[in-house]
């Protein structure tokens, strides 16, 4: 029997593949990487500090005296945030996940869909093998490297989580601000629609929507990639709670004197909403946005687990789904992606909590 040799793919080859798959000019990636490196080596920690607005802590007045400039809001937030250990931990976890989701084509040892390990039984490959030196998380039933699939799965999870959250924020904040600011029939219409969306059974609608788009009679809909379908479904059906929150907060701010003062100075409605009301309710929006990411990741995993994913996309929910038949013999195939979902969702939830504490204006020194 001929032994099929699978060696580790060289780094540059992997990069080439990544570039061709993602259609990014290679030179740009390298240039960006070098710029970032130079920036951080040059300034070290001050670069990070500068990022959070601690730049001009001392300003020089015309008469030559030095005076401390009052710190910006974001630097105060960062100060409170960095004191919180859970915050740092969850933030780091989220950052690592994001890095993995971006860099997984370079980091993973094998392809996420390639079945080469199936023919590598001599070196610990094959179908449903235990974790070993060459395949750190074992291989799945089709003989694909589980570790590579775990890394690759982060991309779909994060993309779906982040973009569905952004979509929800766009819809929810816009409608909420309009309802809270203009009141009257505008509010009435928006809030009733919101009530309607809150009353919809989300899971049923999501399953119906996804299966209609992917398996329906309209061919052009099938062209849409599966993750985009899930993003749209999650975003379009998830904004209602946020809309209520924003509307209530807008109403509260609307009655404050400084909004009236801005109006008296001749500011337009748009300006009042954009630069006086929204910045003041940014804290709950950011917090809820973070929690929405966690919710999005969970929903995506749930939907793909229920079989709405396509077998060709690598996602944690899909992996758990496929591992069902092997639960008895290879529980790690279901447990590992399960834990991945668990930790990422936990990290985002803790991040939301930490942001809530850091952004709370009542704790302002």
């Amino acid at each position, binding site marked *: 029997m001929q032994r099929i040799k699978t060696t580790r793919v060289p780094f540059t080859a992997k990069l080439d593949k990544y570039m061709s798959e993602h259609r990014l000019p290679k030179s740009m990636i390298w240039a960006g990487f070098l710029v970032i490196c130079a920036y951080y080596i040059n300034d070290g920690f001050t670069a990070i500090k500068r990022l959070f607005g601690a730049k001009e802590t001392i300003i020089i007045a015309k008469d030559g005296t030095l005076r401390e400039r*009052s710190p910006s*809001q974001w630097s105060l937030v960062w100060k409170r945030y960095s004191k919180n250990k859970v915050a740092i931990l969850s933030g780091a976890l989220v950052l690592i996940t994001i890095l993995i989701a971006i860099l997984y084509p370079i980091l993973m040892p094998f392809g996420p869909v390639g079945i080469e390990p199936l023919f590598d039984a001599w070196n610990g490959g094959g179908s449903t093998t235990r974790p070993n030196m060459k395949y750190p998380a074992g291989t799945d039933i089709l003989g694909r490297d589980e570790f590579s699939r775990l890394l690759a799965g982060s991309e779909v999870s994060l993309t779906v989580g982040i973009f569905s959250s952004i979509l929800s924020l766009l819809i929810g904040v816009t409608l909420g601000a309009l309802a809270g600011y203009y009141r009257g029939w505008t509010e009435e219409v928006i809030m009733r629609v919101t009530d309607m969306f809150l009353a919809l059974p989300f899971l049923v609608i999501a399953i119906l929507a996804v299966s209609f788009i992917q398996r329906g009679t309209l061919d052009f809909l099938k062209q849409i990639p599966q993750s985009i379908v899930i993003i749209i479904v999650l975003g379009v059906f998830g904004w209602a709670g946020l809309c209520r929150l924003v509307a209530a907060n807008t109403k509260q701010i609307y009655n404050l004197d400084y909004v009236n*003062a801005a*109006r*008296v*100075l*001749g*500011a337009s409605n748009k300006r009042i909403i954009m630069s006086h009301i929204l910045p003041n309710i940014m804290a709950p929006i950011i917090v809820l946005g973070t929690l929405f990411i966690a919710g999005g990741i969970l929903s995506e995993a749930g939907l793909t687990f229920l079989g709405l994913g396509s077998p060709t996309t690598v996602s944690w929910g899909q992996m758990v789904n496929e591992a069902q038949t092997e639960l008895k013999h290879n529980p790690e195939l279901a447990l590992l992606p399960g834990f991945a979902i668990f930790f990422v969702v936990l990290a985002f939830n803790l991040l939301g909590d930490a942001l809530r504490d850091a952004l709370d204006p009542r704790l302002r020194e």
Partner: protein
Amino acid sequence: MNEKRPLLEIQDIYTQFFTESGVVEALDGVSFDVTAGEPVGIVGESGCGKTVTGHSILRILPKNGKTVKGKIIYKGINLLDLAHNQMRSIRGKEIAMIFQDPMTSLNPIFRVDDQMTEVISLHRKVNKKEALGIAIEMLESVGISDAEKRIHDYPHQFSGGMRQRILIARALALQPSLLIADEPTTALDVTIQAQVLEIIKEMQKKLGLAMMLITHNLGVVAEITKRVHIFYGGRVVESGPTEDVFINPQHPYTRALFDSIPSLEKDKTRLDTIPGNVPRLINPPKGCRFHPRCKYATEICSRERPEDVWLGPKRRVACHHYEELDLDVDEETMRERVKIKEEV
């Protein structure tokens, strides 16, 4: 016509609020005018329509409020006819307003420089540096020392008096023709009140701007204004030159108001008060709105609304019985008044 047209003419305005429990007739035929460069006082109890008048002029009433009748003529233009964007160019640039509570009138999350330059860049085409220069200049003129440095601070780093100064500076940054000051000193300490009043007075003289000082503090009115309008229940009950009104009040309400000022000279143990409460404006008393609390009230008072009686070119009172109350006035003035009345 020799005489200049007044800067602001308010002609018989009716402002109403449509609430669940009924229509609140907050302003019921208010008329008065403000001449350019003239400080005018608006005096009255809480809920008598002083603030609503200010808000009606700038058209910043809450959603359920509307000026249903009347004209507000500013420099020959009826403000009630203007489109929203035209009104926006009036606000801040032509007519500015200061609010009662300096603690909440500045946005807590922006530095003072941003909030000062906002109004300047909204109405003038200036770059950021020029706007900042104007802002610093204005802060200095209202007596904030170190303005150049302190302008980069957050509102919460200033005291109440300082914030009110900032708000005054912001309101006057574009040199408006009219300033509406809505109880600018009510929320401040007594010691700070004097300073802020001094600044308002000074700026008013320096910039020669007309001012509507809304207050319930008669001392403040005497200090600053040249003319005063006494409000009661959404109507102007008496108006005239401040001195004249203070020395020789004509309306029973004005009299009662002055009687209830505690005095050090009179030997009294109890404060004089006006019996009863401010009328609810949802279902206001018919006829003269003051009649339930007026000790001179007769049957006609509860039936007919008193018309304005002109006692002089800028002196008027709205009372059925004002002549009968004139106990302190000598005969000669009395005759003169009758003459003026016949002329008008």
